[in-house]
């Protein structure tokens, strides 16, 4: 059937099962939006306030649903505004299709109005990208992009389509969705060796990351830990891969990891790392990282093996397949001494709980934990509030924690939470801070327009708390450019956007307002005052090891 390039783009997306796209129109995307209009009953478009928000929404949509996120933008500034969103997706292995319009080919290379080389700009932050030079390759390029985005280790792919190609006519024939590229099948000898190493270990620690979420092996990991008396810890990206209620789950490890989790890892004699990449925020000083442990590293991406850290055994393969095959070979056994040691760590950790009614982040999060269901998605921005959420939020199902890990993108939260709400079709909670929220609060307009069920919990301490914490600890309390001194009235701000806003001053009040928000049709903002010197603890100093762990604020000051 003859179609325009713009129609081919929309038809191909429908063919690939895309139902929701996020974006922002413009001069060089207008034909795509015309084709979208014709198919508005098949594919729903969400107009963001800014392309960055749209890109984060596509990202959040994937994190909550597992479906490839799609974002549209026009040429020039539309395309460059996607950059932070694409880089965020790249660093966290989020599959995304970014489709941009560009000036007609006759105007390429002439510094035409709103012309930008977006394939050049996004080269290092995409898994692959395309500049469409020939309408004959348009549909297949989109199909291939979709396939690349979701195969192996997922990632974003950008497709730049000049306007004359959007307008040209070409035959379109629907195709079945191509399967993912073959996943690597780990060698049986490595599987057997891993099983042997696990059985011979005395203090096994399962270290799980984002790769375990994609694999969907929460129950298998929990059962494996039971069988072997192993404990489970995770990276930031691994949160919600295993139920936080699982008694063997110790939580996040690393720079701001839970005490018991980081300490158990430090003392383990075997770390089984599943779908993680040993980021510097997770390991601290690699020379002093887990020196007592052998490490088995399982990952789909061969280039992660021995990239950041020396290991004993690297197994490249599909995480689910590899893990299940190892689990089948492991004999299992009881390790009472290890369990006893871990229990002591847990007791030490429990003794640091705050007064139950104090207006502190941990108590706010405890209220949220009580009020939400297992299906609630919790999104965050980046900073102290994010680390508190990572430490204390409860998750019982996979894909419920939406947070920017690798790039650490302040301003991620609003867009991502909206995208997650579109996917989840139920109320999403965004935990944010006044710094991060200030970066992309324009998306409150989007949430109001679409009556997005979104509860924004704004922890307001009036400072850029994470940087301030470093300044307190390592820069002689020189609070350079971290004291905001703003006069923003967040309640009025929410109301000005057409949302509901509340300011609470006690935990009891927060509990009541947070509960009430569930009945609201649309976004609700709840501002919680937080002390500016509240610390994220424990903390490993940058480049430090577990020997340098800071667990008490008094010591810190």
């Amino acid at each position, binding site marked *: 059937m003859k179609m325009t390039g713009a129609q081919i783009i929309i038809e191909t997306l429908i063919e690939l099962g895309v139902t929701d796209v996020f974006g922002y129109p413009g001069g060089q995307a207008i034909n795509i939006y015309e084709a979208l209009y014709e198919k508005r009953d098949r594919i729903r478009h969400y107009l963001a306030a800014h392309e960055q928000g749209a890109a984060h929404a596509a990202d959040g949509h994937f994190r909550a649903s597992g479906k490839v996120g799609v974002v549209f933008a026009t040429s020039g500034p539309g395309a460059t505004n996607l950059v932070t969103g694409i880089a965020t997706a790249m660093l966290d292995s989020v599959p995304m299709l970014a489709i941009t319009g560009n000036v007609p080919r006759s105007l390429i290379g002439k510094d035409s109005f709103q012309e930008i080389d977006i*394939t*050049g700009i996004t*080269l*290092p932050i995409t*898994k*692959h990208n395309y*500049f469409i*030079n020939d309408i004959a390759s348009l549909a297949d390029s989109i199909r291939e992009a979709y396939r*690349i985005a979701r195969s192996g280790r997922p990632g974003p792919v950008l497709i730049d389509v000049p306007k004359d190609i959007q307008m040209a006519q070409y035959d379109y024939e629907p195709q079945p969705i191509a399967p993912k590229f073959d996943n690597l099948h780990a060698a049986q000898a490595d599987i057997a060796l891993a099983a042997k190493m696990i059985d011979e270990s005395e203090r096994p620690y399962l270290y799980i990351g984002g790769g375990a979420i994609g694999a969907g092996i929460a129950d298998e990991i929990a059962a494996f830990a039971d069988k072997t008396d192993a404990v489970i810890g995770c990276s930031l990206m691994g949160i919600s891969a295993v139920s936080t209620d699982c008694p063997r789950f110790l939580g996040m490890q690393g720079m701001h990891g839970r005490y018991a989790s980081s300490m158990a890892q430090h003392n383990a004699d075997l770390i089984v790392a599943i779908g993680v990449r040993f980021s510097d925020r997770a390991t601290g000083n690699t020379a002093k990282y887990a020196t007592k442990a052998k490490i088995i590293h399982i990952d789909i*991406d*061969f*280039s992660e093996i*021995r*990239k950041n850290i020396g290991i004993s055994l690297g197994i490249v393969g599909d995480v689910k397949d590899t893990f299940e095959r190892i689990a089948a070979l492991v004999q299992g056994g009881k390790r009472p001494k290890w369990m006893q040691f871990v229990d002591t760590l847990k007791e030490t950790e429990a003794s640091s709980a705050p007064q139950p009614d104090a207006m502190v982040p941990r108590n706010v999060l405890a209220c949220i934990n009580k009020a939400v269901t297992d299906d609630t998605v919790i999104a965050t921005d980046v900073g102290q509030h994010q680390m508190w959420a990572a430490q204390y939020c409860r998750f019982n199902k996979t894909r419920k924690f939406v947070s920017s890990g690798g790039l650490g993108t302040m301003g991620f939260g609003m867009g991502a939470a909206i995208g997650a709400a579109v996917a989840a079709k139920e109320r999403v909670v965004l935990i944010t801070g006044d710094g991060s929220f200030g970066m992309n609060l324009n998306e409150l307009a989007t949430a109001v327009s679409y009556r997005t069920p979104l509860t924004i919990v704004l922890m307001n301490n009036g400072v850029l708390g994470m940087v301030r914490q470093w300044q307190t600890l390592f820069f002689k309390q020189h609070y350079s450019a971290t004291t905001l001194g703003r006069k923003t009235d967040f309640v009025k701000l929410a109301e000005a956007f057409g949302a509901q806003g509340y300011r609470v001053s006690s935990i009891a009040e927060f509990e009541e307002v947070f509960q009430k928000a569930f009945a609201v049709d649309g976004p609700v903002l709840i501002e919680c005052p937080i002390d500016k010197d509240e610390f994220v603890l424990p903390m490993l100093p940058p480049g430090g090891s577990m020997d340098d762990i800071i667990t008490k604020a008094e010591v810190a000051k």
Partner: protein
Amino acid sequence: MSKFIIAVYVENKFGVLTRVTSMFTRRGFNIDALTVGETESPAYSRITISLSGDGYARDQLINQLRKLFNVRKVEILERGSSIDRELMLIKMKNSKDTRNDIMNAVSIFRGKIIDYSQDALCIEVTGDPEKIDAFIGVMKPIGIIEICRTGIVALERGSGSILNK
């Protein structure tokens, strides 16, 4: 630090060389030389990279190359089992006092004089990079005007093709 030669088959498409070199920049690889050209198949170009580094740098470079979508094949060409060549054009000052020294060196290094004028002569030398370096060493005291080197091209010895490996 040792020297490595890596041969890469890439799809013969617009922008592929940029993808490869952009990755080097992003990952902080320091490349000694890089050549690219057509191959026996119109579908592929061959890139030859020489790099000095330790085993970690070599493994990282290979892994990151293999991750690029348009890269079809990456192979290390080991010194003993491969042949490598480089071509250099070098322009020298031509004077009565030095002409004989230059001519002798060109003959010993099996070079060719490819351009001759009153005050300059241009020489073509082919060989492995060490031979080229040695020739430059001989020419330096005489007075070099300009040098242009192609960078290494290399093939495995024997009847195989790395594409079919």
